[in-house]
């Protein structure tokens, strides 16, 4: 349980104790009101059980005391309220942003296996669960426990045998709760897994709606979605219905306490071991404490579920970001790949012993068949991944000063790079929002200039971009991404098939602009249309994860290799 709570509160123990304390105080105060009622009832009943008659004034004074007490309760409740809500929501806000920040730093290797539904589930549901747990469940759990214990101890002093008879079933209830704990963890985990699964099927359904429609798979014909929803349904039913008998058992245990106490009490009454009045008071207080105990057991069960959310977040947060701490960037923008081998999945080598030197200020083209590892090569240069063996170095080749980029703080390193990805990705917002990502201090003039250069003539900076840039054509999206890259104005630029969706006019214009903007920069570009890159300083030919040839166009075309074959197949003479 301690662990669950730690999961949920994220180790902010100070705040945690404060809110538990405040809530307990407030609940105890409310509960304590029963004393006034018992007192009044006692004084009223006393004469009819052979006692003294109380003065009416005395009774009235007690009533006034009770009203005053209610006011006290009111003021005691306010801090509890604030402690719970304000700190909870502030915590979860901080947590959400921290998680986002953290995720961004993780290696792409981890992230590409992590589906977006998982991330959004954590950002939304898991944190909502935490909010719920921190603002309600945990404080109430403790306060109800404290009330139950207080009542028990109080009654114990008042009349031990009866108190024990009332609470005699509680150990059973606690035992049941312990069993539930173990079952609950498993069931909650399954249910959450099913929920994430359903959620990712749903996302898939929405984002792939055209493919699904055109293949006549919509609606219930889309079995995958239906299956996952069905699984979610059965896991949810299992979670709730399996735990239900246990919940009811604990409730019955407490409820039965009343019955047992009544029976036991009447035995004692008959034997004159307690007075009617004593019995009565015990009964009223005890039956009042049923509700807190039930609240305790329900909250305890829910805690299991919610603590899974804490674990989910914890798991993401404990994933290590890409290593590297050096904040000093190497001086020089030469890039070197030395004996680099890399695989996304163990045993499936994608890059095999690659060696390459890229001089600062040169334009290097990477060509080769689809799937030969071109994009992977660039991703290693950009340190989206670290190689399995060998190293990627940056610095100055001539002076022999090279630094392994895996020792550099990845955040810092990114200042050196700009990139246009093979698949364009745009965020919701405006065109300017998307372009300005890379350079926050860019003026609107800067934005307008790059938009113009990148041939974004179809939209202004303030035009709306829908999710994934759906309201733009393929080529339009590509051009906005090119503008984004241009604006960042970094010394090393990676261009992955940046003109694949462009018509020849735009291609030509974009090329000219890119050319102008990359003057003096290190450029690594991937292209399938060999004509586009025939003038680069160096052409790297890749096949099946290896570099099979390096040279200028003229050198390569003169050899009878893959390059010449591709050149002719491309319809060139």
């Amino acid at each position, binding site marked *: 349980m301690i662990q669950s709570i730690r999961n949920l509160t994220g180790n902010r123990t100070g705040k945690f104790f404060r809110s538990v304390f405040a809530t307990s105080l407030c609940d105890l105060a409310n509960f304590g009101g029963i004393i006034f009622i018992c007192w009044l009832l006692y004084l009223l009943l006393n004469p009819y059980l052979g006692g003294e008659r109380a003065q009416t004034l005395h009774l009235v004074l007690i009533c006034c005391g009770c009203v005053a007490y209610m006011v006290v309760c009111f003021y005691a409740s306010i801090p509890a309220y604030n402690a719970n809500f304000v700190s909870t929501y502030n915590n979860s*806000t901080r947590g959400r942003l921290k998680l986002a920040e953290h995720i961004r730093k993780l290696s792409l290797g981890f992230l590409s296996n992590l589906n977006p539904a998982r991330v959004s589930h954590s950002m939304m549901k898991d944190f909502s669960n935490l909010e719920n747990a921190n603002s309600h469940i945990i404080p109430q759990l403790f306060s109800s426990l404290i009330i139950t214990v207080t009542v028990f101890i109080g009654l114990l002093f008042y009349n031990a045998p009866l108190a024990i008879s009332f609470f005699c079933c509680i150990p059973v209830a606690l035992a049941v709760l312990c069993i539930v704990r173990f079952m609950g963890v498993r069931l909650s985990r399954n249910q959450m897994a099913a929920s994430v699964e359903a959620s990712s099927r749903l996302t898939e359904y929405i984002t792939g709606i055209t*493919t699904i429609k*055109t293949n006549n798979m919509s609606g219930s014909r889309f079995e995958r979605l239906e299956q996952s929803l069905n699984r979610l349904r059965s896991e949810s039913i299992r979670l709730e219905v399996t735990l239900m008998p246990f919940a009811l058992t604990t409730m019955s245990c407490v409820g039965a306490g009343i019955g047992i106490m009544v*029976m036991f009490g009447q035995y004692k009454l008959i034997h004159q071991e307690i007075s*009617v009045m004593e019995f009565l008071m015990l009964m009223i207080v005890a039956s009042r404490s049923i509700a807190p105990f039930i609240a305790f057991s329900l909250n305890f069960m829910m805690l299991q579920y919610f603590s899974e959310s804490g674990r989910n977040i914890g798991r993401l947060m404990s994933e290590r970001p890409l290593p590297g701490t050096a904040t000093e960037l190497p001086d020089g923008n030469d890039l070197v790949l030395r004996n680099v081998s890399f695989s996304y999945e163990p045993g499936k080598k994608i890059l095999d012993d690659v060696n390459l030197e890229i001089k600062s200020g040169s*334009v290097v083209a990477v060509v080769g068949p689809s799937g030969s590892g071109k994009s992977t090569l660039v991703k290693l240069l950009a340190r989206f991944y670290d190689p399995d063996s060998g190293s990627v170095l940056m610095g100055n080749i001539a002076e022999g000063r090279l630094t392994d980029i895996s020792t550099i703080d990845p955040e810092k390193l990114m200042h050196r790079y700009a990139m246009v990805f093979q*698949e364009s990705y745009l965020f919701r917002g405006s065109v300017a*929002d998307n372009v300005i990502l890379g350079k926050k201090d860019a003026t609107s003039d800067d934005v307008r200039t790059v938009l113009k250069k990148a041939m974004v003539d179809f939209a202004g900076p303030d035009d709306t971009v829908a999710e994934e840039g759906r309201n733009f054509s393929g080529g339009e999206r590509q051009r906005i991404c090119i503008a984004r890259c241009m604006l960042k104005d970094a010394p090393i630029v990676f261009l992955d098939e940046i003109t694949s969706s462009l018509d020849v006019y735009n291609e030509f214009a974009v090329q000219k602009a890119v050319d102008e903007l990359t003057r003096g920069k290190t450029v690594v570009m991937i292209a399938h249309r060999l004509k586009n890159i025939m*003038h680069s300083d160096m052409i790297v030919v890749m096949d099946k994860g290896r570099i099979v040839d390096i040279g200028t166009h003229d050198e390569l075309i003169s050899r009878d290799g893959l390059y010449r074959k591709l050149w002719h197949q491309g*319809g060139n003479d």
Partner: protein
Amino acid sequence: MVIRLKSLGKKGISRLLEISGEKKRILIFSVFLAAVSTIIQIIPYIASYKIISLYIDSFQNSVPVDTDAVFSWGITAVVSVLVSMLFNGGSFVLSHFAAFRIIFNLRLRLAKHLATLPLGYFTRVSTGEIHKSIHDNVDLIELFISHKIPDLVMTLSGAVVVFGLYIYADWRLGLICILVYVISLLIQFRIYGDDGVKEEIKGYFRALEDINATSMEFARGIPVLKMFSMSARSFASLKKSVLAYRNFALRFARRGSRDFIIFTILVNFFIFFIYPVVIFINASNPDDYGIVLTALFFTVLSNAILPSLMNIMSISNVIMTINEGVERIDAIFAVKPLPVPANPEKPRNYAVEFDNVFFSYHDDLPDNGSGEKNTERRHCVVNGVSFRVEQGKSLAVIGRSGSGKSSILSLVARFYDADSGSVKIGGMDVRNMSESCLMDSLSIVLQKTFMFEGTIRENIVAGRSGATDEEVLNAARLARCDDIIAKYGLDYYLGGGGNNLSGGEKQRINIARAILKNAPILLLDEVSSALDAENELLLNQALTELKKNKTIIMVAHKLNSVIDADEIIMIDDGRILARGTHESLLRDSEAYRNLWDMYVSADKWRFNAGEREQ
């Protein structure tokens, strides 16, 4: 106020039942069990009162206590606790089964409905928002049906019975209790009377949807963010929506806090309010101990009802949110699907024809927050296009990026309806064909690839379920996927978005899917944009093979892949600029000639080689 809320909830619920096709019977039965359980739950308290009053009576009348009666009341108390738990459990199981079935059906219906909408809906509304409605808002409904309805019934039936007993025992004291409770309810519900609250809840929902949408985008766009965004905090939209959500939540909590606390205290102490009256009556008539016994009865019974009286607190909250949730779900249902023909017709053949078609993406842009939409981009993207492709012939559509080529293909597949003019297949307007008939006649490769999370086989088989492995392999071969399959095998599992394939590999799998479908009309949008020369060449050969007997419309920027087409149309700004075969266009159209020259000229990207060599 309470009544109004309740009736709203009811409306929401009966609407839900209607949507999900769920029978009311089970729910009613579950509610009945819940009510019975509550009533039985009161018995132990009555029993304990009875026992005490037996003793007091015996003391007053100086006769020995009837121990048998005491004993049987004791037994009754224990038994009734157990029985009420059984009823409670029964109600619980029923309500959960019903609730989960309701939300299952609801989700499926929503999913089906989504597939009937014009695609513009998905431009306007983000995946995250839709996801929130279907996934999370529907979860709220579950909570409501399986927990809150029984809770509400328990509160109501408990309150009715206990207050009824109160009135029966002593109407003056009973009325006091009811009055206190009603006042506390009024105080608590006061905030919901405030119209601002509804807005507030809307804002709260919007903020949550926004977090959902941005975090989803965030997850998908990580590579871009890694490269371009220096810190997630600068990923302003996420931060903005997270903060907005917090502010709504806190404001909402603060707003109600005072009333909420007062409510709690009043309910907790409601039984106290009878005492001043009891004291007064008792003082004026000290010999009559009846009123004191009544007070005792009230007090003991109050413990039975207190938890349920408190319960209403969380219910009111849920009712508010559920109404908003149901409204949002209804808003999705309210989006008009593309009209379905009353008497669907079948095309006579597979010629494709555009007859003076105009089309624009009207209001398909999301609000940019300010509520106003940018108008300047709302022009026609298809401007009076007419053409006809005979069955078995091919048409190539070329033109600048953004000129409307993909839009033309979308109209054939009826992702949208044309504003005017008509799109026909085999002489039949696509609007008069049933969706499945239309889709059966088309194979489409979209410009943007799409991969399911699943194996390579599953991804290809999506084209035609039930295809044998042999057929799958054949389609894969034609789409030049041999090397992918040699490398990974058909059972290689692809993560979401096909992230573990290269750009060209994804494209080829998409082509294989369309080839496997083997429909009479083939729509190809830039299918070789990510392919290397060899694959492109071989793919084009394979397509030529396939073209026999198929109607093909293809969009391409690489002109060498269109020269064999039976007709080429050149689009500019949604209009047909020139049409003809490659030869005739080269001869007659200057625009085409320029384009072609530009395409074949080798002198393209020079990289300022001269300047660099200094």
